[in-house]
């Protein structure tokens, strides 16, 4: 079954007295259940806009987005999804425990089950000792860990993570990588955007590269192995020309 299905997606930002800015241009791709897919692109390429359209935050100007066969705007589709936004600043007046309780209750969780999940997730992301400290006293990295924990509430079947390693130190990145691998082994589908190509190379089954709103490359990592010095090398060559470096090389 397809976890994500995007067909001919167009996302535009309207502005008064000016033509709309097209952030995503007829983008199509799919993610199968159980895959880990890295969504790559330069700043402003359209990654976050695509992810916001996936989550139903931005209404598409054209095209369709389906999550587990349901429309992205259908709240039922979001029952099975965990989402991490890019650098969210959680309420400074709540503690990580209270923040998790708020999101957990909105997920439909309650009572002991919710309490146990909150404790286990905060332990997993390494901020259990700060569980009852106000969020305003947490560092950026700790807030990112809190974000990852809230995304994992309710055991989602699909994790959509925007700039997942933003604000994390090297230890945090290693822990995150291990955490995502463990989630994947449990059958969770993961779709994430990141500028950390080493992380992408060590985690992903497949990568998608978006450039100026259009999908320009889609490969499994095994297809790239041995052909380029590194994923970074392939990525830079692709986004510099706007043409898939692997296709270009094959043609040459």
């Amino acid at each position: 079954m397809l976890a994500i299905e995007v067909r001919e997606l167009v996302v535009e930002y309207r502005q008064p007295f000016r033509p709309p800015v097209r952030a995503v241009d007829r983008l199509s791709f799919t993610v199968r259940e159980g895959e880990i897919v890295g969504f790559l692109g330069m700043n402003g390429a359209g990654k976050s806009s695509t992810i916001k359209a996936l989550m139903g935050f931005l209404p598409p100007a054209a095209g369709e987005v389906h999550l587990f066969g349901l429309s992205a705007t259908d709240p039922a589709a979001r029952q099975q999804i965990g989402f991490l936004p890019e650098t969210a600043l959680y309420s400074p007046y709540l503690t990580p425990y209270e923040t998790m309780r708020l999101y957990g209750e909105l997920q439909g969780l309650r009572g002991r089950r919710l309490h146990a999940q909150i404790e286990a997730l905060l332990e997993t992301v390494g901020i259990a000792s700060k569980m009852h400290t106000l969020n305003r006293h947490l560092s950026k990295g700790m807030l990112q860990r809190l974000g990852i924990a809230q995304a994992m509430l309710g055991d989602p079947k699909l994790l959509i993570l925007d700039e997942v390693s933003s604000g994390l130190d090297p230890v945090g990145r290693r822990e995150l990588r291990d955490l995502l691998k463990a989630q994947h082994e449990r059958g969770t589908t993961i779709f994430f955007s990141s500028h950390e190509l080493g992380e992408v190379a060590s985690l992903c089954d497949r990568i998608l590269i978006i450039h100026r709103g259009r999908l320009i490359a889609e490969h499994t990592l095994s297809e790239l192995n041995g052909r380029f010095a590194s994923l970074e090398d392939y990525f830079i060559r692709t986004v510099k020309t706007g043409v898939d470096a692997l296709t270009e090389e094959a043609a040459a």
Partner: protein
Amino acid sequence: MRVSTWQVCRATATAALLETIRRKELYVVLILMTLMVLGASAFRIFGVSGLEIFVKDVTFLAIGALTTVLTVLIAARQLPDEAQRRTIYPLLARPITRGQLLLGKWLAAFLMAGMSFLTLAGVAYGLLLLLGIPLKPIFGQYLLLKLMGIGWLCALVMALSVYLTPAANITLSLILAFGSGLFGRLLLMSHWEHGLNALWLNLLYGVLPHYDLFDMGQKVVYDWSPVPWWVVGAMGVYALASGALYLLLGWLRFRRQTLG
């Protein structure tokens, strides 16, 4: 499994109450009001007698003004704050609708503002008792009506918050709340001075928001007898109908609003 509106309201209201207790603004307005009441009663030191009405007037003016400002500020930040902090995304990533979130946020704002008002009124009641100025039973009706007004004002401000920038919303809401007592007088002036048609007059009066109708402060100051309960009931119907209309208008915009 869909999450019920009740669950959404309970979760957002619980978080909001925790925020209210931890924010400093309630304590600041409490200190301000106490200073105003004690300041007004200080005239006694100079041997001025019969100041009860004056002290009560200052007290209810302080409660009214501070409650209105707090209510507007609380309701105006509910959705824009979430958007600014980007926490609106993890909220809406849950299996809930935007309508449920709007309603939950309204309830949270109402509880925060209502709790602040009751705290202010409670402290004021205690201070007046200490000064030997008891209040008549109409004070109970004053509390009830003001709470209705707070719920109504929260709905108006939250609806405006999805159409306007936070600064514009706060300015307009404060004008509408503090200026609502003038609307009736201005319309009557237009009628007398410029012969404005009575039909238009009534239509305009009906359309304009009337936060002033929820304030019985002056009746408490002058020790009126309680008003008939049907009047309070009619105000409840007005608050419910126009408050629901404001929330509906807010929802119509919010449900399709681009976030990001």
